């Protein structure tokens, strides 16, 4: 289990490194969707990971570019749910 306070960013970056970027670390504010770092299917896998790791539920309407545009944005969503 990863605790949510502050560790969310590291966990998300770790997942991206392992599953998307082939080892490259991603900056917290790097756009993930606009320049095609992640495909839409990878974002689905990421949501499954977030839901399992942080024991949260991402609502259908929350699963959008605003919330998934960067590591920062995703971490904000996760932290808003874990408190």
């Amino acid at each position: 289990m990863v605790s949510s306070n502050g560790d969310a960013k590291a966990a998300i970056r770790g997942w991206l490194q392992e599953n998307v970027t082939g080892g490259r670390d991603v900056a917290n504010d790097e756009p993930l969707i606009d320049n095609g770092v992640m495909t839409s299917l990878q974002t689905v896998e990421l949501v499954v990971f977030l839901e399992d790791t942080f024991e949260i539920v991402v609502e259908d309407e929350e699963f959008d570019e605003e919330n998934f545009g960067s590591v920062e944005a995703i971490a904000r969503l996760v932290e808003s749910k874990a408190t």
Partner: protein
Amino acid sequence: MRPRPEFTLHDLLYNTVARDPHHTAVVDGDAKYTYEDLERQSASLGAALAEAGVGRGDRVGVYLEKSWEAIVAMLAASRIGAAYVNVNPLFKAPQVEYLAGDCDIKVMIGDTQKLEELQPKTVQTAFYKGAKPEGPAAGSYVDVAEALAGEGLKEDTNVSESDLGTILYTSGSTGMPKGVSTSQRNVVAGAQIVSTYLENTPEDRILSALPLNFDAGMSQFTTSLRVGATLYLLRSRLPGDLLKALRRHEITSVTGVPPLWALLIRGARSIRENPLTHLRYLANTGGRIPQANLDELRDLLEPAGTRIFLMYGLTEAFRSTYLAPEEIHRSSPEQGNCIGKAIPNTEIMVITKEGKEAAPGEPGELVHRGPTVAMGYWGNEEATRKAYRPNPLAPPELLDVERVVYSGDTVERDAEGYLYFLGREDAMIKNQGYRLSPEEVENLLLGSGLVHEACAFGVENPAVGQDVIAVISLRNGSEEGAVDRVREYAINNGPPYMIPKEIVLRDVLPKTGSGKIDRKGISSAYSNG
């Protein structure tokens, strides 16, 4: 004003403007544009393109994120007799440079950020959206915003239905992407045929979720234009944005590829609570929807009145068949992958290896005859002769006057005339609705400079069509972290659907008797673990 006969894309615009100039044509984010705006701004951009030296038959590239400007650009090029070439916005510089060279793009209309990535002098002139680009990607630059606001054309060029309308780049089973040269007649016939069987009307609110460089994505624009409907541009492919767009705009019509429906289904709970009552139809193309997903889609959408069309098309002939919603039960695990019957004004033949019409239940190649059969592959006579051949069933008195398209897909027809897709024999990879040739993936990996030999192939995965897998050997033996560096190079230099899901390292790649890399052997060895 009397309606014009429908010969060219601009005729479709002309008639729609004449009927209802103030109807909303395009919604891009919070901005709404009418058909009159489309008429005026395409005339202005057309004049600016002509000013930049674009003439009849020249190619104009459109390398923009899906946007109002991308829509205007297609009409602007068309009305001065030039051909537009929509470039996949996911493409990175190497793919764009290949394409610009292949069909000799004269002017590239692009987003500044994208243009700045290109090699010096990739094109003579670039029209930019955004701040003025830094760097020498083009010899000279024109601001799109200024061009759209400029003076319009004095008079329209005399464009014929036989003129080249657009080049649609698509991958085949070998080599680099090929440009399917599509005439004005092909484009207009496609719009007539598709808007007929989907029964589009001016009241339709059509969600554009597919990229415009994809034939079915472009078709949504041309059908919408023809009937005077409203097109809503969606760039995001995340389920939340898709759901919100469907609801907020009360969308009546959506076309997409199987992975999009997998995302839509993710919103099942929300759809059950609040059904999509405005959605008149959903049309699928670009591959088969996994049966479990199709069942769930039907369960979610049909009670609210949505009809589901299963379409089959190849870029070489735009669209070919569809399975009507009433017949959707014919596509099932028991009966197979039913792709329905020919689209209107089109004949689909099933031709055996001997060149004869196949009997019911006998497999053969799907061959398409009709007004959407394109002109051929740009600059590739050999490939054109292979795919575009004389009609095998023409009477002897009319031999070799009409070209039909050989699809490369094996199908069979049942006793009632329904067509079933059986498969392909070649190595073409289908990933997330995109076609890819193994060489494109291999060339991308070799471009890293780290790879000695590469072999790419597709492995069946119902969720995405096929996964891209690559087996490579390295130039300098097995270096620490080299596979990760190859992957990173690929991500930075290729679109996401071209990145192998798995890169397997080998010391040497097995060869065939003739010394070529044994793709079949490597692929089956991988699949058998």
